[in-house]
Structures are given as structure tokens and as C-alpha cells.
């Protein structure tokens, strides 16, 4: 049933936002009356006030650009390599049967822990971070590509046969488009892991973009600044996921 009136539809959203504001207001009051230690939790108003300082003094734009580049390169790599490997594994069945469980195991293994290895190979550089993002995001893309191709409805393939399509045409005109929504789910999942690892490794090895910013401010014991930079990373990732959702909607309109 399409919404009866638009006011009622936005009501829950308003309540959610209101509750969030009330939560922060509550924290503000509790910190001000010293129920919460102000050296552990800064006042939300301080955090908001430090936003400008963090953005101007800490060169957030340049940091964001660096993190974005790292995530973008790693994201492009997982999409290209992952989809190709997925197609390869789908087409060569024996390869798929031999390695699909390994790929799935890789997806559930704590691969991020091998960052010291890349640290040794690439040093504290952008490429360590890109490679970590790549390693972490690759398995879901491969798995979902296989799943999408294998899930092509039989009848659609038979429709293709009835029109006398070649095997290649069946693959490019029928199987690939029909697998696209699933492949996209895999790419989105992979991008999530990539971004987590990019920012996480930046934080861990104290290099580069936004992750390092948090580390820096925390080490300087700039309380409000630390919270502000964390809030900034959250905003960035929210923005990132909203954009991928939107792109997905454009590319896969039938959903």
C-alpha cells in the first residue's frame, strides 16, 4: 500500500533523529554536571565546535582524498580481479570445485592480520593499505559472481537457445546481465570490507588519511578532536554507502 500521507511516513525518521539529539543533549548535561568524567567523554558541543578546527588544521580534505584514492584503487581492483576470477571459476568447473571452499574460507579468515607482511614488502606506504583493502574485499566478489552466474534461471538460457544464440552470446546477453544484481551485491560487500581495512590499517600503521588522523589526535590526547574525527569517518562511510546504493539502483533498475 503506497503511503497514505507523507507526514506519517516521515514520523519514525523524525522520532529517530529526535531520540539521537536527545541522547546527545543528555550526554551534554551529564558531562556538565560532572556525572560523566569530562576527561573521558567530551561534551557533544565541544566535539561539534572542534569540527571546524579539525577540518582546517588537520587538512581533512587532503586526508579524505588520500583515503578515497586508496579505497578507490582497491575497489577497482577487487571488481576487476574478483569478477574475472569468478567468471573463470564458473567456466572451469573442476577449478571451481577445487577452490570455491578455499575462497569461502578466506572470506571468513581474519586476513587483516597479515598487514605486517605487506608492511615488510611495501613499507609504510599507500600500497600496503591498498593491498590490504584488496585482499579483504576480494573473496565476496568472487563468490557472488559465481553464485550469480550459477543462479541464472534455466528457462532464460533455453530462451537464448531457442533464438539460436551462440554459447558466447548466451553468456554475454543472458547469463551476465541476469547475474549482475548478485555480482553487485558482492562488489558492495567487498567494498565494505575494503573500506574497513583501508581506514583500519591507516589507523594501525599510523599512515596516510583519515585513520591516521584519529590515531594522531588520540595520541595527542585531543579528546574532542578524536571524537570529531571519528564522527567524520562515520559520516564519510555513510556517504560512501549511500552513494553505492544509489549507483546500484541506477545500474540495476529492475530491483
Amino acid at each position, binding site marked *: 500500500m503506497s503511503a497514505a500521507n507523507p507526514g506519517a511516513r516521515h514520523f519514525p525518521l523524525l522520532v*529517530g533523529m529526535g531520540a539521537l539529539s536527545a541522547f546527545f543533549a543528555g550526554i551534554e548535561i551529564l558531562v556538565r554536571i560532572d556525572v560523566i568524567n569530562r576527561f573521558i567523554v567530551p561534551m557533544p558541543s565541544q566535539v561539534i565546535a572542534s569540527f571546524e578546527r579539525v577540518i582546517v588544521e588537520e587538512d581533512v580534505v587532503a586526508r579524505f582524498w588520500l583515503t578515497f584514492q586508496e579505497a578507490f584503487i582497491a575497489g577497482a581492483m577487487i571488481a576487476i580481479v574478483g569478477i574475472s576470477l569468478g567468471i573463470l571459476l564458473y567456466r572451469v*568447473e573442476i577449478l571451481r570445485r*577445487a577452490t570455491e571452499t578455499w575462497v569461502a574460507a578466506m572470506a571468513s*579468515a581474519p586476513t*587483516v*592480520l597479515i598487514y*605486517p607482511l605487506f608492511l615488510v614488502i611495501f613499507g609504510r606506504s599507500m600500497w600496503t593499505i591498498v593491498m590490504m583493502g584488496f585482499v579483504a574485499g576480494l573473496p565476496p566478489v568472487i563468490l557472488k559472481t559465481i553464485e550469480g552466474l550459477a543462479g541464472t534461471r534455466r528457462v532464460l538460457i533455453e530462451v537464448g537457445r531457442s533464438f539460436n544464440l551462440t554459447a558466447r552470446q548466451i553468456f554475454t546477453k543472458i547469463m551476465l546481465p541476469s547475474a549482475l544484481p548478485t555480482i553487485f551485491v558482492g562488489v558492495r560487500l567487498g567494498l565494505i570490507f575494503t573500506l574497513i581495512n583501508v581506514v583500519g590499517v591507516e589507523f*594501525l600503521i599510523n599512515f596516510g588519511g583519515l585513520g591516521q588522523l584519529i590515531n594522531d589526535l588520540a595520541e595527542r590526547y585531543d579528546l574532542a578532536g578524536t571524537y570529531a574525527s571519528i564522527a567524520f569517518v*562515520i559520516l564519510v562511510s555513510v556517504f560512501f554507502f549511500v552513494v553505492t546504493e544509489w549507483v546500484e539502483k541506477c545500474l540495476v533498475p529492475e530491483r
Partner: protein
Amino acid sequence: MKGGAAPAISAAEVRRLRIVIVLVVLAAWELVARSGLLYRDVVPALPTIARALYALLAGGEFYWHLGVTAGEVAAGMTIGGIGGLAVGLLLGANRFLSEAFERFLYYLGPTPKIIFFPIMIMWFGVGVSSKIAMGALSCFFPVALSTAAGMRQIDRVLIRVGHSFRANAWQMATKVYLPAMRHPVINGVRLGLGVAIIGTLLAETKLSNRGVGFLVIQAYSLFDMPRMYAMLIVLFVVAIGVNALVGRLGGLDAIKRP
């Protein structure tokens, strides 16, 4: 889906290919190790890694640290898992709460949790507690989101069947809701376990004096590569094994009773 004309592939052939792949990878590794293309010790020779693995598993120190990490993960899972389950049930049962608050979880879920580590240190200190907090924070989101989604996905007719036989609230919960949503919940727990392990270990590599994460980063800073590889191998085996075990316990691979 199998290609129509392709001949059936036997399990033995698959096994043979797997062995070949493993051998090729190991041989390539060994070749790189001996060629000296990369810095010495970045790719140590296989026997060196094997010796380090043996030394690691034969010594008692590693197990103590593994125990610390396992304890942290278990505590984090318990706190975050129960919290996630409770919140997920609330959101799944109440449409209004879900529309008002679920979007926050949905967007916070994929943000890298490790960035909260400085805050966790401020709140809970540099010891074990902040690692537990990281584990709990990590696993809370996937458990909550998949529980909420699982509850909404329950086939409505099954709930009507329960009501039509006049099941009370407790019976509805234990005989209809929980069994009907156990797959998504177990999946959420599995996902949660994975990220809780990662969150805990990363926190240990960042700032700690105990736990496997600490050992790994210590080996790195001493440039003891073989020992680092040995620990990564053990960690991967343990993590994959635990994950498979949770899946098995949840009966995900069978249509049989739980």
C-alpha cells in the same frame, strides 16, 4: 548448474587438482625464497617456517596468549551477541522502532570499528577490558541486523498457524519464532564471530602486552618473519575451524532438526 555436454568430474580429480595447486604454490614460494628476489626473510624457506611452527606449538607461551585472546573474544561475543540479539528482537518485532532506529545500525554496521579503539581505551583502560569492548562492539551490529531481518522474514502464515492453535506467548517464541529464524540468527552470530575475532586481534596489535595480536606485532617488530607466519597459519586455521563449527552447530547444512 552444469554445462550440458561437459563430462562429470569425479571427486578424485578434484582432489588431485587441489594437491597440484597446493604443491605449485609451495614450490613457487620456495623458489622465491631461494632466489633472494625479495628482502631476506620476507619470504622465508618452507623448512624455516615449519621449524618456527613446531617451536611455536611446542612452547607453552603461545597457548597462554591464545587463551587470553580466546577469553577476550568469548567475553566480547557474549556481551555483544546478547545485546545484538535483544536489540534485533525489538527491532524485528516493532515496525515503528525499526523505522526510527534501524537506519543508525545499518549505517554504523559497516564503518570500521577499529577507529573506536582510542575511545575504548579511554573508557576501559589499556588492559583486557578494552579488547573485550572492541569484540563486543564488532559483533553487536551483524547479530542485531540479521536478527531483526530474520524476524521480519518469518513466513507470516506460520505465525497465524501458531495463533490458530492458541499458542501462548512463550510457546509462540520457543516453538514458532525462534526455530523459524534460527538460520539468519546463526548466520549473524557467525558473521559477528568473524568480526569480533578481527576487532580483538587488531586492538591487540595496536596496544597490548598480551594476546596473539600482541605476539604477531612483536614478531614483526623483531623481524622474526618465520614466527609471524607460523602464528598467522595457526590463527587462520583456528578462525576458520571455529566458524565452521558454529555453522555446524546451527545445523545450517541440514534440513534436520536443530
